[in-house]
Every structure is written in structure tokens, then in C-alpha cells.
């Protein structure tokens, strides 16, 4: 089940800020197969997603990211990973999503991911992301740095996050997973 936009834009008044909370979603007891932020205003300069999440399957992992419901092969990712014993680097091009960076997620503890999307509303540029992600469960862990691109100049109005799925059926985010979208002026 999709969990959509649940946070509210702030009402008028108060202190003008440069880092605004746009929307927040917390996963309930039934879990969620994806998270969607929609109707994103174009009035900020950059976006940041701050998330913690736990998934139901160790063959799942950090969030795949797509924009404006585009599931075509219009994305690429480059990554640097540390799995606690060795570092590796690689890329995924002509892909249907930006990769989150973690392939084998703990089912016991929450992972974390911070995603920056720079100049998201500029219609003269493809869209670039930067991600810091990690998980550790006291026996294994992964730290990841990932850059991504959406090869499209459209302003981003929708962001969809889904758990990395290496098996079928698709995996789910578990209860208390929390996703927050912020706008930066």
C-alpha cells in the first residue's frame, strides 16, 4: 500500500526559515511497500530526505529512488561502499531507479539514509542526488556514499522510495520506519 503525503505545510506566521519540513511519513503496523512524497512545491532551492527504515527481508536494502513516477531506464548511480571488511565501488547506468547503496539490510535494526537533491526545480538541468546511507547490527554493517542522476530536466514534483528488492515479491518497510522531506532555500 502506498503511503502518501501526510505532513502539512506550515501555515503563515512564525519565524522565516531556510530549512523547512515539507512532509513526513511514519510507517504503521501493516508496513508499506513504498513511500511517496507528492505535490512537492517548486519554491525551494534543494530538497533533503532524512530517513530511518527497517525492512522485512535481509535480501532487501536501502531505498530505490524514482522521480515523477518515471520508471523508465532514465537513472544512473555511482557508489562507494564499505561492508566492514572491504571497500568497493561501482555504477549502475540506464537503470529504472537511483540505487540507495545498501543491498543487505538488517531486519533487526534500523538503517539510515540522508538524500540531497540539488536544484530539483530547475527545468534546465538533469537532476543530481547525493546520498549517505548505512546500517549496522553489531555483527555486520554497510556504509555507503552514492551519487545519482535522473536524466530528465523536469522539475521534481513527486519522489517515490521503495526498498531494494533482490527477490520477489517486493519487500516492505516495517513499522516505525520514518521518512521526512525538507526544503532548503
Amino acid at each position: 500500500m502506498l503511503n502518501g503525503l501526510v505532513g502539512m505545510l506550515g501555515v503563515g506566521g512564525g519565524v522565516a526559515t531556510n530549512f523547512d519540513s515539507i512532509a513526513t511519513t511514519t510507517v504503521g503496523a501493516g508496513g508499506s511497500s513504498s513511500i511517496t512524497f507528492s505535490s512537492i512545491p517548486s519554491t525551494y532551492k534543494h530538497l533533503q530526505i532524512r530517513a530511518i527504515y527497517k525492512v522485512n527481508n535481509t535480501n532487501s536494502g536501502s531505498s530505490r529512488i524514482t522521480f515523477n513516477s518515471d520508471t523508465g531506464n532514465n537513472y544512473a548511480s555511482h557508489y562507494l561502499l564499505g561492508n566492514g571488511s572491504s571497500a568497493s565501488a561501482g555504477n549502475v547506468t540506464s537503470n529504472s531507479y537511483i540505487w540507495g547503496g545498501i543491498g543487505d539490510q538488517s531486519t533487526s535494526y534500523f538503517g539510515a539514509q540522508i538524500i540531497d537533491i540539488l536544484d530539483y526545480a530547475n527545468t534546465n538541468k538533469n537532476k543530481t542526488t547525493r546520498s549517505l546511507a548505512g546500517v549496522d547490527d553489531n555483527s555486520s554493517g554497510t556504509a555507503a556514499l552514492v551519487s545519482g542522476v535522473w536524466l530528465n530536466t523536469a522539475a521534481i514534483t513527486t519522489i517515490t522510495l521503495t526498498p531494494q528488492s533482490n527477490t520477489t515479491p517486493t519487500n516492505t518497510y516495517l513499522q516505525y520506519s520514518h521518512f521526512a522531506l525538507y526544503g532548503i532555500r
Partner: protein
Amino acid sequence: MPQTYTPIVSNTLSSGTTTVTFSSIPDTYTDLILQVQATVASGNYGLKIQFNSDTGTNYSNCFLYGTGSAVGSTRNGTTNQINLAYAALLGASSPWISTTHIQSYANTSVNGKIAISRDGGNGANAGTDAIVSLWRSTAAINTITITNTGSGINFSAGSIFTLYGIKAA
């Protein structure tokens, strides 16, 4: 619009000290961000933090590091600290810097508090890291104790430690 990214407390050292403690951290934010820019009086050391005065072996860390001549990854488990640097990057000359995100720090339904950090320094020991750390506790974090890995080694005057709160809608 309510303030979303708020400085909670900042400490710029006027004289050397071995320990910086942020206590009585309010539980009204969603995430914390700890920013450190520091040097030490002498030698080269790492930086470590503990939550809620927990000195037990309830922490673990996974490192992705680059030293300028090598890249690698390692981890430690069942340890008594969160490490904010893989190597002894905190020195006496050029400041070492670190940004640590402590996510959902006050949510007692989240088993285990996760911190992800980036740090770097270009002193006698130079390098940069991405680190993910776990504190195996459901408690809300109300205290952060910051020390270096030296014994009795002071952070230098001028070192800056700042804690920010981020509030989601």
C-alpha cells in the same frame, strides 16, 4: 513557519578540556546533528561519543575510510563507544571536522539508535571517512559525552562543538 533546524547548544572552548558533555537534550526534535571542529593539545587521536553515560559494550561501528594512500572498510562490534573517525585524524595543527546525524534519537519505539557521520582531517594524519554506528538501546538520547581516544589529552581552546535539532512536520 516554525523553526526546523535549530541550534540547541554550542560550546567553543575557551581553554583545554578532555571532555565535552551535552546533557538535558530535549526530546522535542526528530533528529540531532552534532558538528565538531577540533584540535588536541598534542599527538593524534580519534574522537568518540557515548550516549546517556552508557559506558557498556552496547555500541558498534562500520567504517568506510580513505587515508590518502589507501581505501578500505572495517568494523567493530560490542564496543563501548561510537567512533567518529576511523584513524587518529584529530591532531594539534589543522582542525579535524565531523558531522554526525543521529536519527530518531528520542523515539523509544526504535530499537537501537543509529548515527551516520562524515569526517575528515588534513593534519599529520590525514583522511576522510563515512561511518555508520549503532547504540543498542531503545532509550531516548538525553546526553552526549564527547572525548578523544587519548588518555588525559585535552581538546584545544577554540575547538567548537555544536548540537542542532531537526524537527519534522
